């Protein structure tokens, strides 16, 4: 009866071609997506920041988004073309990008001009960081392309556009068995810091044991409700994701807090930008320049300054310092100096006569000091004069000019408001044996506290006139300090300022340039921290993989039945992807809530720090919504990626196997 044709052993001439593993067309699409994504990012960034004039951060964000969309589109097309996941093609494309970056590109790199800022900053950190940065860019690009490919397969894999998640979500929820009560319980366990929650659970379990034993004694059957293993695994994965997101948000918020604190202090003590002039002691037209600069849109205020390094001495104490001559009337519009004054008054720089005398125990020292320096008590020391100094001189006493010093400087010099401080400049008059240091006493008019140790221990301010007289610079200043209206737009504003001044011999610097090392170190630290803590989320996503594999194994029969009813591969995949996403989403929401709560707690209650070490009394926290959003996005992306392997495993199960296991 059987037709003579096919013999039983060998398969018949296959009517269907065997499924393709690697297709050239898919690969070229994937390669276009993955390899060109970094180029897209830098092109879009260049376009947005230079042509459109968006602020750098916004332009960078949009550029990354555009590149991600590009890579995802490439991956999606590659997958849609073959109606497969196109995993091999994307992996090959990623490898190609890595090779390109480490091969020809690395050779060309020193010759390439106009590289992205990111690449330049990697280059500055050395070859290892550069290579790591390039490789991780390639991996990120490939990962995003793979996400695009899987999404495209889920939506288009059935051969028609099918983005709905109707019954799949229904199935996913039944698999996870997450009742609101269970979720709440898990949340409480995580909130209470795991240990108390587990203690309660153990007590509950002990109580159940006792009940079981009592029932056994009475020869009754006690059905102890048991938690299904998969539910337990689900809860553990949710907890894992939550803890990862929690740690990331809290640590990044604290680091942002430190950074913001530092930025505030730096910008408070210093200007947002400075205008300098090449050459020495010839910036005499600063009044005109100031008027021009103030006319530039975006500039809020400007004040002249004279910068010199000196030594300060008071009694036996000596220290190096920076003396800045400032215009008392306008300095308050640019820096926070007047607000940072703790004792005394900034205005006393101009009205030295108003500086009160030093406090009582120091009067004798002061008299001695004044006697030695041959200056005698000044007019300001009326109290002293009232006491009737025996050797009162007849000629009028000169008023000592005022000086403002930082708190740490005041401590190390033991000089307080009213005390005299000697300013010693190494570049002084010409004496018989060459240049002699020049020294002049000033009286402390005020003590400031900026919160930056570096500033509080190194900076001293005198009035501009006094400084010019002391250093003999005539009417010249070092430069102008500027305040811009938008701190983050300081760089373009400073560029406009330079244009308004017709460039050379002027030059400008913004706060970012002046503190580049500090901020790039902070950024680096933050990135490294995010990567290290990201490993927690990574581990959590591995738990998700394990949980989903367990679920797939438990549900083989169900998958077979669904397939017998006509559920396609993408449809089965959707069930398990939905499960992983639910786990990830619940965990992420938990983590965000916990992170937010912890940050609020740290912010409101305050965790004291040793101010001697950190110069901050409390742990600073800055909650940035964008940062929280990024952490959530990363956690969800990792959860999503974790679902792909178990979901494909489920989708590829042969229905017959599931039906046989009865």
């Amino acid at each position, binding site marked *: 009866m059987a037709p003579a044709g096919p013999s039983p052993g060998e*398969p018949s001439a296959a009517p269907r071609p065997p499924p393709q593993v690697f297709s050239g067309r898919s690969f070229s699409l994937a390669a276009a997506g993955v390899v060109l994504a970094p180029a897209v990012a830098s092109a879009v960034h260049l376009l947005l920041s230079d042509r459109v004039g968006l602020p750098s951060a916004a332009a960078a964000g949009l550029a990354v988004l555009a590149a991600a969309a590009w890579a995802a589109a490439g991956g999606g097309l590659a997958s849609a073309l073959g109606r497969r996941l196109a995993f091999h093609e994307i992996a090959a494309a990623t490898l190609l990008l890595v090779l390109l970056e480490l091969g020809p590109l690395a050779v060309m790199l020193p010759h390439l001009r106009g590289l992205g800022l990111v690449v330049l900053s990697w280059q500055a950190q050395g070859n290892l960081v550069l290579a790591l940065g390039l490789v991780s860019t390639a991996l990120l690009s490939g990962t995003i392309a793979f996400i695009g490919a899987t999404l495209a397969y889920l939506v288009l894999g059935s051969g028609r556009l099918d983005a709905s998640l109707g019954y799949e979500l229904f199935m996913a929820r039944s698999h996870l068995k997450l009742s609101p009560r269970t979720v709440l319980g898990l949340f409480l366990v995580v909130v209470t810091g795991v240990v108390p929650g587990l203690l309660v659970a153990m007590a509950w379990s002990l109580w159940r044991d006792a009940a079981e034993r009592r029932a056994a004694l009475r020869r009754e059957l006690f059905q102890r409700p048991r938690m299904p293993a998969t539910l337990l695994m689900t809860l553990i994965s949710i907890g894992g994701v939550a803890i990862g997101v929690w740690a990331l948000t809290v640590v990044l918020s604290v680091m942002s807090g430190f950074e913001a604190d530092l930025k505030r202090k730096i910008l408070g003590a210093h200007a947002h930008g400075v205008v300098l002039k090449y050459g020495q002691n010839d910036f005499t037209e600063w009044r005109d320049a100031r008027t021009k600069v103030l006319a530039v849109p975006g500039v809020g205020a400007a004040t002249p300054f004279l910068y010199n390094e000196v030594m300060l001495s008071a009694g036996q104490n000596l220290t190096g310092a920076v003396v800045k001559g400032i215009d008392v009337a306008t300095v308050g519009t640019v820096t926070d100096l007047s607000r940072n004054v703790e004792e005394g008054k900034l205005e006393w720089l101009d009205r030295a006569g108003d500086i009160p005398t030093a406090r009582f125990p120091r009067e004798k020292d002061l008299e001695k000091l004044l006697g030695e320096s041959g200056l005698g008590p000044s007019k300001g020391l009326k109290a002293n004069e009232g006491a009737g100094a025996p050797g009162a001189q007849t000629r009028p006493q000169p008023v000592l000019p005022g000086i403002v010093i930082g708190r740490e400087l005041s401590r190390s010099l033991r000089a307080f408001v009213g005390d005299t401080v000697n300013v010693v400049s190494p570049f002084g008059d010409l004496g018989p044996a060459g240049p002699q240091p020049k020294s002049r006493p000033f009286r402390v008019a005020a003590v400031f506290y900026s919160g930056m140790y570096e500033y509080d221990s190194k900076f001293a301010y005198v009035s501009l006139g006094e400084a010019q007289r002391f250093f003999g610079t005539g009417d010249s200043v070092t430069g102008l300090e500027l305040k811009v209206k938008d701190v983050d737009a300081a760089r373009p504003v400073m560029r406009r300022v330079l244009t308004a001044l017709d460039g050379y011999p002027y030059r400008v610097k913004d706060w970012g340039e002046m503190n580049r090392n500090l901020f790039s170190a902070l950024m680096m630290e933050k990135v490294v921290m995010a990567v290290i803590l990201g490993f927690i989320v990574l581990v959590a996503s591995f738990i998700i993989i394990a949980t989903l594999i367990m679920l797939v194994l438990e549900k083989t029969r169900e998958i077979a039945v669904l397939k017998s009813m*006509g559920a396609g591969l*993408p*449809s089965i995949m959707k069930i398990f992807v939905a499960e992983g996403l639910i786990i990830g989403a619940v965990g992420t929401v938990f983590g965000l809530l916990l992170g937010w709560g912890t940050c609020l707690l740290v912010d409101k209650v305050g965790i004291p720090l040793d101010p001697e070490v950190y110069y901050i009394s409390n742990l600073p926290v800055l909650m940035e919504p964008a940062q929280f959003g990024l952490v959530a996005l990363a956690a969800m992306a990792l959860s999503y990626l974790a679902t792909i392997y178990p979901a494909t495993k489920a989708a590829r199960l042969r229905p017959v196997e599931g*039906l046989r296991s*009865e």
Partner: protein
Amino acid sequence: MPGPLVRIEGLWKTYLLGERRLEVLRGVDLEIRAGELLALTGPSGAGKSTFLHVVGTLDSPTSGRVLFEGRDVFERDEEELALFRNETVGFVFQSHHLLPEFTAIENAMMPALIRRTGRAVARRRAEEILALVGLADRMEHKPGELSGGEQQRVALARALCLQPRLLLADEPTGNLDPQTAEGIHALLADLNVKMGITAVVVTHNERLAQSLPRRVRLAAGLLVQS
């Protein structure tokens, strides 16, 4: 006279179990006409389930063809096969294989939901079919709360939800007591008449097989017409 609904030509199914080659089907030929109610009998291990799975495209043959309305079903790709199973074939298994977390009506709706029919439409259709199999008042019960016969009726309702052209039942009464089994068979015969469904019913029970219009017997991988 139109051609047969299903035409099976030289169906071989061979499994390789390590060194040993297991020949489950050894060249089966069969024609099933539209509207036919066919009983497939045979001893355990004769390859009845495998035959049913291959005809229903859950498994692919080692060689041979299954023509549905003259077209080889295995020419389709995976997704087309899924669509074929969804629209054209209904399965009933020995152990009902209902989804335990869902109610009777939700189980019966499932094929319609897989086809992306709207929830309301799917529900209405499932209600009709459940009423047809005599479960109008048990719709909101979960499988665990139903008797064996009722469970199998729900499974039947699920298989019939999308009005398939071909119903494949793999020992639908194998786990039931004779009386209930009789009820299910009567229902099948009734539906065959009412809905004009073509059905292949695998059964051990010779007495029940005798009640069906056409019987074929599978023995050692070969068909024995009876």
